[in-house]
């Protein structure tokens, strides 16, 4: 009896400690980034301590004006929003088709789609680049955006979700006179809102923090996105860590805020992937 009460008392403490530890491990790089962003360039490697002697808030305006970050942020936003919109359209329609429309070879085609998830992103960078180059789309929005519009992960997510919707709802709509497109738009899609929200969130974050593809697909300063701009601190200004970290904090902020308000969709997204 006593042992059980002791276990009951220590267990939550243990759990909290474990979570706190994990939390620290996850947060440490971000905290380090924030702290570094307020240091002087020489202070970073001085080894005098973790915290800046006197926070250099001026790093922020200086970093953000060293390059046209306003433009970068706008580009990131355009890129991310367009990718989100595109992926919602392609993932919901394709996911619905894979979930509900009976067409020959459906299962095989779906497996083929899934198989592409096993191909590392880096491997397809070159074909994608050649593709947009052939179209003359290098350093344009359409070049940046077009090859990001389809996400197999998104299709998979939506298919899994559509499969969980009661079929009778769609049957009812069919008896009510709705054709396949109407059933999709008026019944299936509104009910899939939670999954669409999850998809949008993940797509937005993926696009926002995408470095490699925008680095390849764009050349001019006008077309750069935030991530590329941050990376550019390495070359343009040697390696200015505080500036880079200050720009990094600014770039992370929208995502962090988004996460605060949409945590449950993250969790749901991870759960959905487990549904077979």
């Amino acid at each position, binding site marked *: 009896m006593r042992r059980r009460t002791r276990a009951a008392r220590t267990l939550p403490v243990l759990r909290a400690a474990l979570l706190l530890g994990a939390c620290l491990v996850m947060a440490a790089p971000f905290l380090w980034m924030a702290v570094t962003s307020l240091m002087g360039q020489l202070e970073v490697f001085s080894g005098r301590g973790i915290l800046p002697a006197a926070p250099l808030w001026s790093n922020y305006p200086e970093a953000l004006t060293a390059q046209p970050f306003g433009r970068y942020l706008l580009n990131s936003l355009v890129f991310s929003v367009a990718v989100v919109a595109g992926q919602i359209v392609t993932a919901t329609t394709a996911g619905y088709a894979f979930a509900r429309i009976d067409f020959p070879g459906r299962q095989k085609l779906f497996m083929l789609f899934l198989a592409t998830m096993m191909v590392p992103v880096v491997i397809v960078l070159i074909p994608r680049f050649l593709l947009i180059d052939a179209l003359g789309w290098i350093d344009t929005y359409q070049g940046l955006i077009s090859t990001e519009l389809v996400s197999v992960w998104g299709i998979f997510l939506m298919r899994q979700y559509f499969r969980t919707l*009661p079929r*009778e*709802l769609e*049957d*009812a*709509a*069919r*008896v*009510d*006179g*709705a*054709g396949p497109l*109407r059933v999709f738009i*008026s*019944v299936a899609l*509104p*009910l899939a*809102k939670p999954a669409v929200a999850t998809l949008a969130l993940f797509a937005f974050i993926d696009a926002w923090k995408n470095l490699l593809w925008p680095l390849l697909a764009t050349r001019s300063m006008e077309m750069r996105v935030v991530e590329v701009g941050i990376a550019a601190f390495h070359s343009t200004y040697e390696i200015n860590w505080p500036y880079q970290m200050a720009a990094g904090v600014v770039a992370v902020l929208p995502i962090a805020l988004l996460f605060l308000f949409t945590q449950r969709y993250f969790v749901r997204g991870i759960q959905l992937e487990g549904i077979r």
Partner: protein
Amino acid sequence: MTPAPRGVTLRGVVKRFGSVTAVADADLEIRPGELMALVGPSGCGKSTLLRLIAGLEEPGGGEILIGERPVNDIPPGDRDVAMVFQSYALYPHMTVAANLGFGLRVRGTDRGEIEERVERTARILGLGDLLARRPGQLSGGQQQRVALGRAMVRDPGVFLFDEPLSNLDAGLRLRTRDQIASLHQRLGTTMIFVTHDQTEALSLGQRVAVMDRGEILQVGTPDAVYRRPASLFVAAFVGSPPINRLGLSGTDDGGVAGGPFRFATDPPLAAATLAVRPEDLTVTPPSFRPDITPPVRADFTATVLRVEALGSEQRVHLDGPGSATWIARTPPSLRVDPGDPVHVSVAWERTHLFGPDGSRVGAPPRPIHILRDS
């Protein structure tokens, strides 16, 4: 206002799912304005049959007509049918009003008329105060009425009900049953009602179609199905408590016999099953044993095993002939206790005889003579 009701005709309709035959060669004629109950155990194909009529499944063969029109190739929305689903299938993201009006909106009915018809339907079903709510905010009974309303609002030629009462509690189920019956009287629309509950089928249906393993075994009025079951399956499935059964075996003189029962059969049968409804057994204390003259009744003595007093009636479980327990339905005035010996008699014309394949044997079976097991 209400359009002319339409009949529904099925001719040799077949539906297979892979190697499973869900509906086998179904022929059925549902008259305009009729309330037909489709009844059978779960998995018998009754819901599939309904979905075939609705157009939600494509038949593998045969022809379906609604009114005079073959509808095999017509999508569900253009068949002039409305369906109430077992789960109600209300659109959870729409208000009650939007649920009711969805079918009209899809058809491009103008807004004023939609509003008017939704309101009229809501009034009939007492949903007036709920129009702005969503299905999740309604009780089961209210959801059921919305589902009914969604079907009614379109004034369809045929109503299809797929076990709409099975999710309701007992009291509400009875009330909704009455509501559907009065709705049928009021609208005069053709209705096809699928249920696994034979009481529901008999009480609602003007005619009843009994199904098993994809086949329609018998179609008739509730009385005909109950009084003159076409097969042993129908006899056993319809009626509660279930019909009493006794296996009979062939005799040297070409008849069949078992316990106190003995029948001449033509042609001779190797085996047969006798069935008697519980209310067709007359139970009396042994002292009142009437003097019986063949061929009016068969009789035997039995011991009371259990007595169920249900108020208006009494069910007496007996160790009758054969291995199974016999159940007799008696007036509550009969005073018997477990262990009591009783005398049981059966009128011959109330017995049913079924051949080895389960089909009914001829006209009322002719008894040869009666054995008394005294």
